[in-house]
């Protein structure tokens, strides 16, 4: 590893964390965003390339990051959208037969900055209590050197993710097709993860289309079903998509994940709340209210659906056992269902993969 560049992370509440700079050097020496944490012990590459992290700086609670390097198969999107990573320790040497390059090389290649050597547990405890906070980090020495003052200012200036349309930054510019399955699915891309596309493509021909694609255009592709993808940030910032879904409801089976789940709720006039901290990990117990079985799930969201606000039209199908947050719903009057967690995992357990088969079945029966 190149020799150590002292760096610091400053949060909007003024707290400062010492560390060492790693990865790419950010423009003007400062990376800023909404600081969140993820407790998954492996899967850093999937997380870094997950578009849902657009606008956010991800703290990894597991101290050793980079141990098994990176492999292009594990990318969750065409690039990286996180604003930076905060870790305790970056592996100096990686070891795994699948790996193609080290995490550090990968970060530099994708222009992602990071800070290592941080007391990430202190940071996590702080975020747990204060909720996600805007923050900024950067090297304190070297050509791009910044200062604690500059970082403090940057953290204060950082808007965070509320009220910003981050989807527009991550959605595909033009439609593309994946898979050759019998069924036809149109996937509205709010920041779709590759693992989801692959799951759908395993039984369908999937047209991935921009988030702003109007209903008519979607129906013109005469799909058997429409998929609403995961994505970053605040669902109220994509009114156009909400309108599209409202129009599609009843005309065609719909399945939504994560942001897609929230968009579906808003389309039936449900309401959304921002969670104190949100769910970011791969170990959350979710109970399937229909079977009573518990699924260990992969989660990454700050906003959640208010159960009562949708109860008029939907049944709550999944509940997070840690805090009772709504994790899934099924509409009673039209063929549409959605979950807040990530059945495609990546990273995380495969316990919820059955939901893709349910979508397939729903399309078969037309609801």
């Amino acid at each position, binding site marked *: 590893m190149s020799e150590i560049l002292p760096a610091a992370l400053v949060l909007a509440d003024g707290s400062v*964390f*010492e560390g060492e700079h790693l990865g790419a050097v950010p423009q003007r020496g400062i990376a800023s965003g909404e600081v969140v*944490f993820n*407790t*998954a*012990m*492996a*899967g850093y*590459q*999937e997380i870094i390339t997950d578009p849902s992290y657009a606008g956010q700086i991800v703290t990894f*609670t*597991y*101290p*050793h990051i980079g*141990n*098994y390097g990176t*492999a292009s*198969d*594990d990318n969750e999107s065409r690039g990286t959208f996180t604003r930076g990573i905060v870790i*305790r*320790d970056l*592996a*100096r*040497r*990686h*070891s*795994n*037969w*699948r*790996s193609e390059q080290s995490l550090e090389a990968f970060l530099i290649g994708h222009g992602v900055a990071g800070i290592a050597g941080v*007391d*990430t*547990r*202190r940071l*996590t*405890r702080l975020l*747990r209590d204060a909720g996600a906070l805007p923050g900024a980090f950067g090297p304190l020495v070297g050509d791009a050197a910044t200062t604690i003052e500059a970082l403090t200012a940057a953290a204060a200036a950082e808007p965070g993710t509320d009220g910003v349309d981050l989807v527009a930054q991550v959605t595909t510019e033009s439609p593309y097709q994946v898979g050759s399955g019998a069924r036809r699915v149109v996937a509205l891309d709010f920041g779709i993860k590759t693992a989801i596309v692959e799951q759908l493509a395993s039984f369908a021909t999937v047209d991935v289309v921009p988030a702003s694609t109007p209903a008519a255009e979607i129906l013109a592709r005469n799909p058997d079903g429409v998929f609403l993808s995961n994505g970053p940030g605040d669902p109220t910032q994509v009114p156009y998509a909400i309108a599209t879904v409202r129009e599609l409801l009843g005309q065609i089976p719909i399945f939504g994940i994560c942001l897609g789940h929230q968009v579906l709720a808003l389309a039936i006039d449900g309401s959304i709340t921002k969670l104190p901290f949100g769910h970011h*990990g*791969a*170990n*959350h*117990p979710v*109970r399937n209210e229909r079977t*009573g*079985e*518990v699924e*260990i799930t992969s989660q990454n969201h700050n906003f959640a659906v208010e159960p009562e606000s949708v109860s008029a039209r939907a049944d709550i199908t999944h509940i997070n*056992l*840690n*805090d009772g947050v709504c994790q899934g719903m099924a509409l009673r009057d039209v063929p549409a269902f959605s979950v807040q967690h990530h059945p495609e*995992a*990546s*990273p*995380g*357990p*495969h316990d919820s993969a059955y939901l893709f088969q349910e979508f397939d079945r729903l399309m078969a029966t037309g609801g």
Partner: protein
Amino acid sequence: MGRRTDIETILLIGSGPIVIGQACEFDYSGTQACRALREEGYRVVLANSNPATIMTDPDFADATYVEPLTVEVLTAIIEAERPDALLPTLGGQTALNLAMDLVEAGVLDRYSVELIGADAEAISTAEDRQKFKEAMIEIGLEVPRSGVAHTMDEAMAIIGDIGLPVVIRPAYILGGRGTGIASTPEEFEHVAANGLAASPISEILIEESIAGWKEFELEVMRDRADNQVIICSIENLDPMGVHTGDSITVAPIQTLSDVEYQVLRDAAFACLRRVGVETGGSNVQFAVNPDDGRVVIIEMNPRVSRSSALASKATGFPIAKIAAKLAVGYTLDEIPNDITKKTPSSFEPVIDYVVTKIPRWAFEKFPGTDGVLGTSMQSVGEVMAIGRTFPESVQKACRSLEAGHTGLNASAAEARFLAMDDAELAAAVAVGTPDRLFQLAESLRRGVTIEDLHHQSKVDPWFLDQLSIVVEHRQWLEAQPTVASLSRADWRRTKQLGFSDAQVAYLLSESGDDVRAARLGHGVQATFKTVDTCAAEFEANTPYHYSTYEDESEVRPGTKPRIMILGSGPNRIGQGIEFDYCCVHASFALRDAGFETVMVNCNPETVSTDYDTSDRLYFEPITEEDVLNIIEVEKPIGVIVSLGGQTPLKLADRLPAELVLGTAPSSIDAAEDRDQWAAVCDRVGVPQPPGATAIGASEALAVAEQIGYPALVRPSYVLGGRAMEIVYDDVELKRAMTALGQDGSLGREGGLSAERPVLIDRFLEGAIEVDVDAVRDHTGAIAIGGVMEHVEEAGIHSGDSACVLPPPTLAPAVVDELMAITGRLAAELDVVGPINVQFAVQRGEVFVIEANPRASRTVPFVSKATGRPMAKVAARLMAGASLDDLRAEGLLGPDPHPPHWSVKEAVLPFNRFPAADALLGPEMRSTGEVMGVDLTPGLAFLKSQQAAGGALPGPDEGAVFWSLADRDKEEGIEAARVFAELGYRFVATAGTAEALTAAGLTVDIAVPKLGEGGRDAVALLSDGEVTIVVNTPRGRGARADGDYIRTAAAQQGTPLLTTVAAAKAAAMGLTESATSPLQVRSLQQLHQEMA
């Protein structure tokens, strides 16, 4: 679903004596289970032959049977207690096998007892290696290619197809006993034969060897709604080929991507479903080919295991407790997570630190063994350490070992490795041994590349690079002029890489105190983080802490006065579960008395390291630096050092004197230091065996000159008679002295060191040894716990000899004298708390062998035999209470006069070390103990033999083999006479045969000496004609005669009595048992009878 209401009484089977492969982790799991089940309002009946366990405290079950774990005894217990259910998954392989036997014997059906936790079908699918493989192939998992053999011919046929190298593993065995890797046809024949012998159903599995692959373990829990979660993932640093129990293991998995890990997770779940584990915890082992990721499943244990204990301590998830609740009907989502209180147990713990386990071995006690690690487990204990990173974690684990290391090398203990030349070193790292980790570090220091080192050792490059980071920093430190030149940043990095102040002191040749001062000068102090199962995502209520060096410390100030209890560190021969028992009892007693208790220990197998045993738990190495760090944050009013064996005792005078509770460090020294001790004995007027100290052979010979032979040679400040020897002439004495002089194994143990002279005593031949345990309070009042008469004569380590309470043969006058002397010694040493005195009574004359002003190995046994909670009492006395106070409270009852007899018998690991002589001597070698209780000494002794696995076969099953030393012939004949009356036939070696015939006894065969032609003892043994061996060697010197007989007996598992005393006791028992049928009694019943 909730708890089952259709069952009331549940029988729990413990794992019996501590043996290699099955240690006190099953006391941890059994204790948790007992608590959990009683919390749920069930009536718990417990059977366990091991008196040293905490689970066998009368308070933990409604009926506690400390009885032999045999089908016959269990049947009697079931008959008496009529349990509705049997929970077999928390008592290790012993409980599982016993449950299967009870099923096959139809006992469970007869008394309609339901097997809960795992059913018979599931157990056999998991345990029968062939069945298991077929099941796994059926669900599409890969297993190593293999075949099953029941005979040598079948075995040969199999390697015909799969070729060599292969691994050979017997069915139904634990800890890999009798398994091995064979690369040549010769090795193959040897290992296969052993394997067939080791398997109770003489079945072995022969398997393609995948030694060198990465090895992983997953700890899984399943409930009856088929919810499954992974509690912990573990990666072995030592690749396939070294038993997981002998491997350095790390949690969580470090070198697999999520993609690969999820494959293992899915496979583990599929495995449990197919095997049919109904509910509870299981352990699944995988191997992964580092070159292409090919995954094969190695085995699964359908029960709580050693790794479950590790996983529980590593994550804070109480596997055994939850397993017990699942067994009675709960589902995971119905059980709250103890640590967060808010969230359910149906989740997967995540950790934000690195856990390292390093095993501890005892090869030095078994001369003749090669000390190479393989597929059969040989370690006797383990340590676990928690750090934020692997370097910190592994360094903490190294210094927890108490093997002379103060970290990963950079300590005096590295001398051995520095001395090796490059070629030696390269050869050494290719083989799994207790030293490999340190040899890897030394290789890196010499600049061996990670590629080469990986090629030699097969250890994953990630681990090697992490070790290299430590080594490179060591080199950087070495290059610093003085400790003063280290900046705050340097210190932070040094400590974050896990370096102890002692290592820094060694590298910069400064004093430990100066180093510590310099560090604190920069304000670089230990910070304490919390083990919380969720990587801080939720708030944790459980103060379970570990140290690291970061920004924030999470320790909350306490409310009540705090007392710190220092545990006993890794289990080892001579210091095991007994001491954990004492520490845990102290914690309970002091908590009840209104103190906040702070436990410090680094042994993951123990009850003391359960987060709910004490008010606060620090999972830390027990070294001066680490303990002082904790004292700084906890500010206890006192520290207890005398209940955890030698480990904390060694620290006594390094801690602030005013904090050491109970007996003063100076008294502790007075008892250990030869000259001071002699002075004490003179003042008190008790004779010691004549003797003196010597430095070097010539002085030793001079001493021997005065006191005469036989003489006993020993280092001071060691436990378990370490390196102690009886010598019969100058030659043996010289050899013994040179052995001690060299660094040998003792330097490593931190036991012997040059400035500590060797003690040479007159060896008292044919003396009766007696142990006395007592407690004394600050007013000078004393209470005797028990007087134990040993069955074997002095010369056999107290830890290895059977003992009887109350003393069966000693004259009351002698017993009174022993108690009186104990009182005088305790007073002279101003003991406050426990004291143990060992005596040798030679022809009615009393000698003191030693006094230990600390809790002794026998405390739990005494407590169970008499109903007196000795450790609790001792703890309270040290915390200021008087015996009268405790009587008033009712903690201490009137002096007990048990109407029954209790026998403690030692359990020895010779079957694991075929190359070692199975002869008992002054160096302790037993790993565990059992207890037999009955109405006569003979019956109690017989039970103890049964419990120890040496049930004596009847007269019609085979002959008794006699081979007596001349001095034993006279008494031996008396014993033989009784055997003859019982109808036993005899075979004997020539001289003994003569003596027996002369005494009018019939000897069928006079056995020729080895090599004299004809069928020798070994042949008779292996043909099963001889079923009991009585062999008392001439003397107990190094190369005692007849060792081939004892070795053969040990390998065959034939009951072996090496003293006449034991033979007599056995004879007595056999006579009595012929007329009195088996009776079982619960401790509660026994203690009732005494009151």
